[in-house]
């Protein structure tokens, strides 16, 4: 998470009304004979960002990326990169480079030839090509593998070469299509941070497609959640996780407890919701979106923000429900408690394992209180 904190320390360009977006996508639509892959997407990405498009497979994120690269022609809408309209510009003339999911290294060329390929197309002098190839191979720590063929490299090494081959062109925008999907878990976690470091080093704007929310959370400066060809929410990892704007986003990123209810009272900064699934008690929610009295809404609360205890909270401000422990999922660092309420509804609560398992205070079939602060729950109308 070290990499992310560095991002947060930077001035956030998306909050600056004067800042012009570096990549601007305007009402972009892709229609494959009636089936709409990308639906009226408008998106701004700023210079130096590592933007992640996150969504399930088939949500249109790859199509959007391929339209940025120029492999697919949009049905309507426009793409501007650094202020220049990209419509009608073929892929080989765009200031954009792509790292493919399969890496797409040229099998008949060695590492050096692969990396030099893009520069040769620019007809640069040989000495300059060699210098830039060496620099970029040093950056990805692959200088010793210059003469290898792609089939003689491991998955992680191929990934570095694919990255180097794109970076060496010094594109205005680098696109990454699930760049780490083919790596095993340990290597993937290591490479995530490396990729962020390289991105900060070279200062090129990255747009990355991912279906792995952890990957997006770790790496991205901002995340765009996509579903059914639309972008549902754009925000920093924290915003997406803590303030999801819809049921879809809150369910997609992490796990969440969700209760349906009806708004009973509405004040300036909080609402009272009565939920039949929470034993007809009143729940206080801090809210940003306005919900009229009588409206049907959902309340969402992350499991780690639900405190589990054998005693009721002393503070009256907490929302509190009572239940019986049904299941305990032990994950080593944390345990997830499945608590069944009187009406049969299961609520999840995650607690850090402060004690060794034998001394755990809460056991199966214990009667427990679950409570959380109103400001930690989210009111969702969509």
């Amino acid at each position, binding site marked *: 998470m070290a990499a992310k904190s560095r991002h947060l320390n930077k001035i956030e360009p998306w909050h600056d009304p004067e800042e012009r977006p570096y990549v601007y996508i305007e009402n972009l639509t892709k229609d494959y004979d009636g089936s709409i892959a990308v639906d009226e997407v408008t998106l701004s990405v700023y210079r130096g960002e590592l933007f992640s498009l996150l969504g399930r497979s088939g949500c249109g994120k790859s199509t959007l990326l391929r339209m940025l690269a120029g492999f697919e022609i949009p049905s309507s809408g426009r793409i501007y990169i650094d202020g220049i309209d990209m419509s009608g510009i*073929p*892929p080989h003339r765009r200031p954009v*480079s792509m790292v493919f999911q399969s890496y*797409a290294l040229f099998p008949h060329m060695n590492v050096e030839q692969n990396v030099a*390929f*893009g520069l040769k197309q620019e007809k640069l002098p040989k000495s300059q090509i060699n210098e830039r190839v060496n620099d970029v191979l040093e950056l990805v720590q692959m200088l010793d*593998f210059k003469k290898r063929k792609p089939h003689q490299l491991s998955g992680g090494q191929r990934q570095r070469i694919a990255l180097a081959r794109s*970076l060496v*062109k010094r594109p205005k925008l680098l696109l990454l299509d699930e760049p780490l999907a083919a790596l095993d878990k340990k290597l993937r976690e290591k490479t995530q941070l490396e990729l962020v470091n*390289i991105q900060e080093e070279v200062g090129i704007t990255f747009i990355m497609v991912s279906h792995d929310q952890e990957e997006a959370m770790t790496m991205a400066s901002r995340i765009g959640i996509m579903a059914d060809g639309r972008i549902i929410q754009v925000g920093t990892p924290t915003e997406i996780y803590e303030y999801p704007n819809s049921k879809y986003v809150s369910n997609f990123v992490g796990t969440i407890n969700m209760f349906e209810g009806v708004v009973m009272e509405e004040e300036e900064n909080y609402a009272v919701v009565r939920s039949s699934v929470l034993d007809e008690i009143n729940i206080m929610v801090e809210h940003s979106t306005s919900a009229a009295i009588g409206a049907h809404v959902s309340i969402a609360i992350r499991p780690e923000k639900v405190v589990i205890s054998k005693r009721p909270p002393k503070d009256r401000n907490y929302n509190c429900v009572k239940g019986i422990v049904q299941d305990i999922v032990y994950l080593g660092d944390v345990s997830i408690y499945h608590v069944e309420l009187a009406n049969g509804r299961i609520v999840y609560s995650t607690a850090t394992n402060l004690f060794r398992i034998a001394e755990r205070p809460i056991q199966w079939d214990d009667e427990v209180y679950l409570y959380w602060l109103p400001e930690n729950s989210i009111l969702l109308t969509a």
Partner: protein
Amino acid sequence: MKRSKFLLSMLAFGYAFMYVPLFCVIGFSFNGSKFVTTWSHFSFKWYHTLAQNRIMLDATLNSLKIACCTATVSVVLGALAAIAIVRFKRFSGKSFFIGMIAAPLIMPDVVTGLSLLLLFIGMNNLFGWPGEHGSMTVTIAHITLSLSYVTAIIQSRLAEIDSSIEEAALDLGATPTKVFFVITIPAISSAIISGWVLSFVLSFDDVVLASFVSGPQSTTLPMVVFSSIRMGLSPQINALTTIIIGVLTVCVAIAGYIIYHSSKRIPQKSKGEGKHWRSLV
């Protein structure tokens, strides 16, 4: 572990089945007798006679020329057809096109030969082309046959290739034409070479199609061999066969050597020490 005697003898039988006939031909090519099948004494006699046999040598040369033309044209057309089939997602009549390309595979040679003969005669009557039958008509006939094989070979190779390598090249700034020559062609080169060799062989040993569409000026080697059977087979054929086998063996050996050396692994090198990041820009 000791290998079973049964398996070893089966292996020996398999090799014998394939190669003993070839060794017989090679052995009998040095036979002094004028009968093809009876051994008398060792001699280079038939190699001398072969060197003076203009008909046989001309036919060989003609066959080689036809085979080379056939192979080259088939590979070019076959590669284009394969690209159309594999790389273009939809076009009207695609399945019809695939079927038509493959049809000569199941067509008996006699039918193809006869229909081509009729076509050539008809065309000659209508526009005065291709005129007298000869190397040209034989080459066309051979191309119709080998094109289906070549297309099938290149098509299956092309389908295996990740099309994103072509996109990657395009993305790195190569023009579509350059991508085709620098990325696509090298990627399918093995299929192109094997397609070329296969159609060369198909053309070189075809006798049926050639009998229908060749003219008096151009006979191919298989036709000469075939017709000479009627007048009694001359041991010259053994000598010729031995020369062909020899040339082919050398070619295969060279190809094998090149393939072996180009795919040999570069020895493992130790990974470099972690270096500090250096700015690109």
